[in-house]
């Protein structure tokens, strides 16, 4: 399981001048740098100490906002939109293709630790046949093959492979 080093975490906080008002941004960056898409207890303690924010408040933030996770997740978060505009426009098909291609159910991580599949609320990519997101990027829904090639481009770490595929933002 990848872990964030103390110096990395300190550098992230320094980017925000150790400012408690930037707590959410700091935790987002710590989560991103963690390699496992989560905020470990160790990091939460360090942030609490450095910023002078009570640990309970750190955990309030980590549990209030849906983008945070305490449990380790895959390097890439794969999110299928389940809000109404996508749900009735192919969202269920997109989700079942994703589950099938990745071989996991929503909430699970692939054995290689690369992908975690999740259902998500609307992320502003409506009107595209059940959109899904991988990390920061959103894609339109499509056939199983189309979706599989998007996934493959991440697996093989080849942005070139997904050129022109179904990228929305």
């Amino acid at each position, binding site marked *: 399981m990848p872990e964030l080093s103390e110096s990395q975490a300190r550098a992230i906080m320094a980017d925000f001048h150790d400012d*408690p*008002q*930037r*707590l*959410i*941004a700091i*935790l*987002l960056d710590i989560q991103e740098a963690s390699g496992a898409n989560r905020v470990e207890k160790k990091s939460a303690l360090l942030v609490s100490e450095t910023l002078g924010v009570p640990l309970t408040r750190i955990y*309030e*933030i980590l549990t*209030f*906002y*849906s*983008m*945070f996770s305490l449990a380790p997740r895959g390097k890439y978060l794969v999110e299928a939109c*389940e*809000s*109404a*505009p996508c*749900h*009735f*426009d192919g969202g269920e098909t997109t989700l079942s293709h994703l589950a099938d291609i990745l071989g996991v159910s929503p909430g699970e991580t692939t054995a290689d630790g690369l992908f975690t599949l999740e259902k998500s*609320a*609307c*992320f*502003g*990519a*409506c*009107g*595209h046949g059940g959109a899904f*997101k991988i990390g*920061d*990027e959103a894609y339109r829904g499509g056939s199983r093959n189309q979706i599989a090639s998007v996934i493959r481009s991440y697996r093989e770490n080849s942005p070139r492979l997904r050129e022109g595929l179904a990228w929305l*933002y």
Partner: protein
Amino acid sequence: MALLVSMVLEGAGETDPLSIKDYESLGGFAALRAAFALEPQAIIREITGAKLLGRGGAAYPAGKKWEQLLNIEGSPKYIVCNADEGEPGTFKDRRIMEAVPLRLLEGMIIAGLTFNSPRGFIYVRGEYRRLQRRLAEAIQILRDAGYLGERILGSPFSFEITTISGAGAYVCGENSALLNSAEGLAGRPRIKPPHLAEVGLFLKPTLVNNVESFANIPLVLTMGGEKFLQAGHPQSGGSKLVCLSGHVRAPGVYEVPLGGATLRDIIFSPQLGDGIRDGRELGFFHLGGQSGPLGGPADLDVPYAYYPLRERGLAVGSGAVVALDASVSPVEYLQKVAEFFSRESCGKCVPCREGNKILAKYLQKLQIPGAWTPEDERRLSDLMVAMRRASFCGLGQSATTALASAQKLFPGRFAGASAPAASEA
């Protein structure tokens, strides 16, 4: 009147979003330059005359909001842009930030100048992380060109803009929850009054407007309030970005003059939605996000503008138009809506936190043949009143809007047992 206009989105897709030169060639920053020669009251007079209604959903007159803030003592005053865009079916602020970010920033700088504010913040939903980086880039470009930072364009006015990221919470679109989140707290709404104009970000007087509202400000000043009003509907000037999704052939963001297009135009015109896919019929449509009302084929000829829609029990809201074909069960649809609200309720107050969960269960029960009783009917109606009246913020208060409109639109379907089978036809 043309069905489509190019006002807020002028230059979108045709110009480099990060090129000041491109933006200036379309008249960009002329409004800001003009604003330096105007008194704050004169700027606000144009906005009031333009009848620019807030584009974030609540349709509060921007002129009135600005005037209230102007009349409040206290400094500094902060300028906050609501780019949380969490209403399902809404993606127009994303379009503005992607394609014409400089227009949004110009609007914010004009606001800063009007209130002699030192700082503005753009609160962008966490899911738009790539956009946050782009906005930060646009801000840096303006800083380098002297449009932001110290002594803007050689004047005594200095102004900075910073982006702030959300982290996944629909309720943070509510403006007081947004400010809490911007301060690094959990995004639960604040009690009002005091209004945010008096006690806002860091307890200072604060202006909160939506992305599209800010992006309209330069247009209001270059066109003048009167012409801006004429470009729209007599009670609400300008254009509206419509986010069309669902089962239309051509989903996307379209800019229509307010009052210049009907819902029929939006869903069926070949220039816009181009009708329902796969040769199916329109069943119903959902306006303004999950917190908005449903409408049906009989409502199609209502002009798309704030007041005509309101008179029909409909709403512009965020600009979302989700058109569903006749195969979609309204009860099933409403259950998805209830699930959304119960997922996104912040949990601060009981009517919303518990109410939305119970609502989702009732909607499930409605789908079980023969399960619905008159007692359920009574309880559901009490629950809806309690949620609407006793919820702490707009989320809980409007969570039943869609259901209430659907009960009128499909009288039989939501009263299973008391009006059996026949209603399903």
